[in-house]
């Protein structure tokens, strides 16, 4: 098997593992914060429903964490198995955040175990809330450090290459790469946003299925409010990310926007189909790309023609970019409508069709996460380390990658189906009405 082929197969396997892992990782970063907020609201309002909300979310969360942990272990090791040449080079520069990520993960794992097995063990619920802080912090910190590594791959710095040798390595400088602030902020904001919309989906789904308990209403209102806040944050940070791209990775932005000629007052292309260098059936917004890139309508945006042909990313990333942005905008708008309507007491948000739209929100957010990651990753092709190492030079020389693809595809299939089956069983067998009744009975029993 040729060298190029193993590179392609390694890319496929990495894509598969990461695409599967980020679904769980996103939930893993976002949900602890939601649990923490629910528990905090419950304590503050002295409302048992929110505490129960936290508890039920936590139970489902364990299942997703388990799959997140094992797939995270897989990608962690696959980095060295599939990209040994890259890891050997990058390990010299970027090992620090990888190492710190493990500590964050360690910290989270310890406190998650404690949190899950100390329900009702402390008299004071506030003590129990304290245990969630390290869980949420650990989850956020591991996403921070691992995104730092990815940011480094997009805009490497903190070292020099002299006669093929790495010299003057500065681990801290490598961590503070130009891509880091926007990437980290965007990853976290979208994780919180996606988790909020996913939990809202569940509440809306239960309500459609006829459960009219006030518990679901509280859950829905809380998560939609959080979804609104984080989707606005996401949009703002997305704008900063555009400005970062224009400055440091103009070829990625240009490919995403099918922007060929360098020009001032560049237009933004929404949707459409590419025909040669012409975008057909597209909505073109004048000056918008210049505003996205530099904040001024008449500023100059670098076009694709400025780059060597073998250093530009594939042009289909435009569709990924559009998917991500459209879903993000829709969710921000939609949650805004919901929150305003809920405050005003407008009743259309109780209609079935509207609730189905809420149900769609969670899966849509997950699709946007996938599209966004594919966009950013495919958008830096052909580089694995932009400007330093091409993807084809980094791949393993082992001939068995194709078999491993089949092996892991089977694994992810089992894990995916397992998650769905276990989660749906868990909540179906123990609906909230039953759990509330059980808790009442238990309390009554204790008082006697």
């Amino acid at each position, binding site marked *: 098997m040729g060298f190029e082929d193993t590179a392609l197969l390694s890319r496929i396997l990495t894509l598969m593992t990461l695409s599967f892992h980020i679904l769980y990782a996103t939930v893993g970063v976002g949900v602890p914060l939601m649990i923490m907020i629910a528990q905090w609201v419950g304590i503050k309002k002295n409302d048992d429903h929110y505490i129960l909300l936290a508890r039920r979310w936590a139970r489902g969360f364990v299942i997703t964490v388990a799959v997140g942990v094992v797939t995270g272990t897989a990608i962690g090791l696959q980095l060295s198995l599939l990209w040994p040449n890259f890891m050997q080079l990058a390990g010299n520069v970027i090992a620090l955040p990888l190492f710190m990520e*493990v500590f964050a993960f360690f910290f989270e794992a310890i*406190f998650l175990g404690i949190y899950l097995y100390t329900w009702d063990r402390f008299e004071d619920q506030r003590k129990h809330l304290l245990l969630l802080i390290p869980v949420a912090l650990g989850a956020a910190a591991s996403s921070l450090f691992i995104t730092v590594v990815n940011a480094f791959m997009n805009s490497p710095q903190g070292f020099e290459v002299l006669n093929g040798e790495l010299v003057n390595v500065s681990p801290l400088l490598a961590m503070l790469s130009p891509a880091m602030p926007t990437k980290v902020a965007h990853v976290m904001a979208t994780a919180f946003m996606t988790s909020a919309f996913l939990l809202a989906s569940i509440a809306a789904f239960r309500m459609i299925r006829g459960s009219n308990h006030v518990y679901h209403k509280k859950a829905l209102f809380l998560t939609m409010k959080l979804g609104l806040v984080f989707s606005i944050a996401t949009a703002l940070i997305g704008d900063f990310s555009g400005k970062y791209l224009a400055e440091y990775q103009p070829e990625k932005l240009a490919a995403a926007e099918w922007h060929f000629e360098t020009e001032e007052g560049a237009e933004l292309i929404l949707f459409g189909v590419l025909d040669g260098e012409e975008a057909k059936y597209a909505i073109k917004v004048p000056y918008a790309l210049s505003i996205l890139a530099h904040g001024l309508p008449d500023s100059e945006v670098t076009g694709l023609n400025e780059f060597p042909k073998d250093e530009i990313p594939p042009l289909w990333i435009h569709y990924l970019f559009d998917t991500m942005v459209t879903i993000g905008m829709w969710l921000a708008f939609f949650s805004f409508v919901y929150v305003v309507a809920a405050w005003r007491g407008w009743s259309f948000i109780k209609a079935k069709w509207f609730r189905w739209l809420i149900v769609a929100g969670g899966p849509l957010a997950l699709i946007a996460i996938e599209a966004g990651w594919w966009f950013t990753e495919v958008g830096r092709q052909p580089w694995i380390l932009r400007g330093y190492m091409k993807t084809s030079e980094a791949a*393993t020389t082992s001939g068995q990658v194709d078999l*491993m693809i089949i092996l892991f595809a089977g694994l992810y299939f089992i894990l995916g189906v397992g998650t769905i089956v276990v989660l749906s069983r868990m909540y179906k067998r123990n609906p909230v009405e039953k759990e509330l009744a059980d808790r009442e009975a238990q309390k009554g029993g204790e008082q006697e």
Partner: protein
Amino acid sequence: MTLEIIGISVLWLFLFLYVIVASIDFGAGFFNAYSAFTNKQHILTNIIQRYLSPVWEVTNVFFVFFFVGIIGFFPLTAYYYGTALLVPASIALVLLAIRGSYYAFATYGAKINHRGYIYMYGLSGLLLPAALSPVLAMSEGGFIKMADDKPYLDYWALFTSPLSWSIVVLSLTAVLYISAVFLTWYADKAGDVKATDLMRKYALIWAGPAIITATGIIFELRAHNAEHYTRLLDLWWVFGISFLLFVGTVYLIWKRRNYGWAFILLVGQFFTAFFAYGFSHYPYLLYPYLTIYDSFTNESMAIALIIAFIAGLGLLLPSLYLLFRLFLFDKDYVKGKSDYHA
């Protein structure tokens, strides 16, 4: 002490901790399955689940810590081991994934009590050490060969080598022995007489095979890697201490006394043997291609990693202590007096 030595010592320590906690975990799965097979499951399941539930995820982190750490301190290992290990490491990953997720699915989620799953979980616990341990054999040289300047794994040599099979057998017996001693102690703390007796029996059964295979490997090495063998012999007195500790453990278990001390002696036994083996391996990471000196990262990264490591331990040790206080050393929890499960 040079930075290289600090780096490898830290990693070796974490590998050791993984060996201990993972052995308890893998062995527990096996004993659980075996007791289901012999219709004694009711005796062991509660004890095992009560221990494993809050800590299984932490166990996994020790493993991640080791492989992330070794790439960090010795990036060149990614090139050699990464290229050669694609297939065995992928298989280990799949087993690990099935195991970890199944445990969460079964104990937190669906409460599946299907026998097939229990057997699978137990079996995967035995397959995992078998899949991971050949890495130790590879590090002795002779299995990773170079062609066109690129490393590849010689499967035929690996599968026909008595050394690699001895290491597999050692890992299996050690897993069962370590796990049985620990669970004897844990069951005793829980005041569960039946489980204690059962685990005590297993501990005594597996003590013999564990020590015999461990000794056997030293002689296998004489034929496989003479240089390593001589260095091992120089450290004979450390292995002697290790053996005395082994005798102490078996004695205490036999006499049904001080199970806690028995476990501590067991950890001491493996600690001394593990580190003596590690020292004798010095300076090679992969004989004869890779030493800890030529694969070491640059100085600024090494210092940064060591600082991060110390800071990380500052966070980790108190947290681990808290975890142990709440679950391992808390009488009410161990005895299962209340259900504190989320």
